[in-house]
């Protein structure tokens, strides 16, 4: 309890906790869950966008999308490395992803169906992610905070690229404009879900906020996201698929409809449109890749022994 109080005092004072510092088991556990889930989201998040790399409409767009997906894999790597400082290995976390013990962001269980989805994912999904992540640059765990600094810089670049795709579509042919609107229709509510259910219903929130692992409430962030995004949609000439959406002068923000939380919990339970496929794709990559990992390990071992023998 004394240790605990001292720990909390350090956090309250804005100090960063570093890997070798003492930390409560719950802090460690929560961070592993959160960072692991974040890392997994980057990895699984490659799939919906990867779905359109081979169909990108121009060489430039293909290059931009490839670079983006590559960045996401890179983010996964930082985050796994960050989580590893807490005493868990990447392979352990991967196996927990693959057998369903660890989650990834539900948004990636939705399909990407037209090229406009590449725009909407960048604009809305990365937009929501940034909203979550910017405050985490000030999170109490040092490696996590530092990973977030790097990630946020790239994510905001991705978001601009996504918005640029949407702009081209929204100002394009009638079919392109229809694609853009369709993408917004499908991805609006799933994006709002990315902030999680209302804090009233969220279990771990309070402790996480005290530990500065979580910096804002889900509802705060969601409101901020809506307030930022609605004018962007208007600028694109697109209609947010929410008839109740209205500016509320009093609160200085928009009133908006809640997403269908039953759908959210259904997706969490594995019943999203693409849960099965996403996990199957990752499992297949892992299983098919076993011989590669084994082969590389065996070779590295041979090298090591060779060097030792030569000494």
């Amino acid at each position, binding site marked *: 309890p004394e240790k605990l109080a001292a720990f909390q005092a350090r956090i309250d004072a804005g100090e960063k906790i570093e890997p070798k510092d003492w930390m409560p088991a719950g802090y460690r556990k929560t961070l592993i869950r959160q960072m692991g889930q974040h890392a997994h989201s980057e990895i699984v998040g490659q799939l919906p966008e990867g779905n359109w790399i081979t169909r990108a409409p121009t060489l430039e767009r293909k290059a931009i999308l490839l670079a983006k997906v590559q960045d996401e894999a890179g983010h996964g790597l930082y985050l796994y490395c960050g989580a590893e400082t807490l005493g868990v290995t990447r392979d352990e976390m991967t196996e927990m992803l693959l057998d369903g013990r660890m989650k990834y962001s539900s948004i990636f269980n939705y399909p990407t169906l037209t090229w406009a989805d590449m725009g909407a994912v960048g604009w809305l999904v990365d937009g929501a992610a940034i909203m979550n992540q910017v405050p985490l640059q000030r999170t109490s765990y040092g490696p996590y905070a530092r990973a977030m600094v790097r990630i946020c810089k790239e994510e905001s670049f991705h978001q601009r690229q996504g918005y640029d795709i949407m702009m081209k579509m929204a100002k*394009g042919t009638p079919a392109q404009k229809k694609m853009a609107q369709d993408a917004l229709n499908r991805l609006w509510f799933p994006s709002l879900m990315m902030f999680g259910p209302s804090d009233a219903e969220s279990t771990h929130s309070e402790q996480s906020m005290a530990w500065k692992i979580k910096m804002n409430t889900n509802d705060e962030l969601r409101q901020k996201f809506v307030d930022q995004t609605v004018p962007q949609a208007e600028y694109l000439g697109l209609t947010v698929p929410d008839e109740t959406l209205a500016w509320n002068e009093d609160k200085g923000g928009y009133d908006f409809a809640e997403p269908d939380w039953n759908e959210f919990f259904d997706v969490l339970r594995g019943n999203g449109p693409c849960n099965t496929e996403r996990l199957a*794709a990752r499992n297949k990559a892992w299983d098919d890749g076993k011989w590669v990992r084994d082969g590389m390990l065996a070779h590295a071992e041979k090298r090591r022994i060779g060097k030792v023998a030569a000494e």
Partner: protein
Amino acid sequence: MTDRAAYFEFLCRMGDNTLVLGHRVSEWCGHAPILEEDIALANTALDLIGQTQMWLGLAGEVEGENRSADDLAMLRDAWDFRNCLLTEQPNGDFGQTMMRQFLFDVWHLAILRGLEQSSEPRVAEIAAKAVKEVQYHVERSGDTVISLGDGTLESHRRMQDALNLLWPYVGEMFVPDAVDAAMAEAGIAPELTSLRAAFDAHMGDVMAQATLTIPDSDFAHKGGKSGRQHSEHLGHILTQMQWLQRAYPGANW
């Protein structure tokens, strides 16, 4: 064939090689056996697509019919593609992909080094940019071939299978035809045959380290770089690659 037509063909060969191989490599996105490999494959694909923009961009200018790099990539059917057959072969397993990459990279680096000396400054300039990227590709793919060739029994077997499968596609890259002859004569590109000895030496060295045996056959498939007879794979690649441009002609993206 006029010099300009041959020059256009040659540029299409360079650009189609990188386009088609870049496409193939990009198919891996999200499915690689190790996260670092996912990143590396995306990086390779990205480099190749970037080179495609330069080669096909120049090809369009040389042709003088107002076709952009995107027009060439997205609106030609299979018979107008000039990539060598190796680049359109399916990914297979990771070993097959890396073997294909290595066989291509070694040739690619050799021709790019020759092209750095091109009598056409534009070609020399593109080659100089690409060479830096491809130097890295060849190191990476060579290292992978070595470690998987000299890894476990299974990885060795798979790499040997990949080498056996893909070796018959090597010859096409080195057998010159009228286009190559015209390019060599004009000093635009090196003599293809002059690149073979160094290629063989490099192969020999890496395959020895990888404990792999180069097939004892000089049989070579052909028909890709001439466009006469691609494999059935290319048409399937194009159904994906060109889908949006075909389905929504004239749109800006």
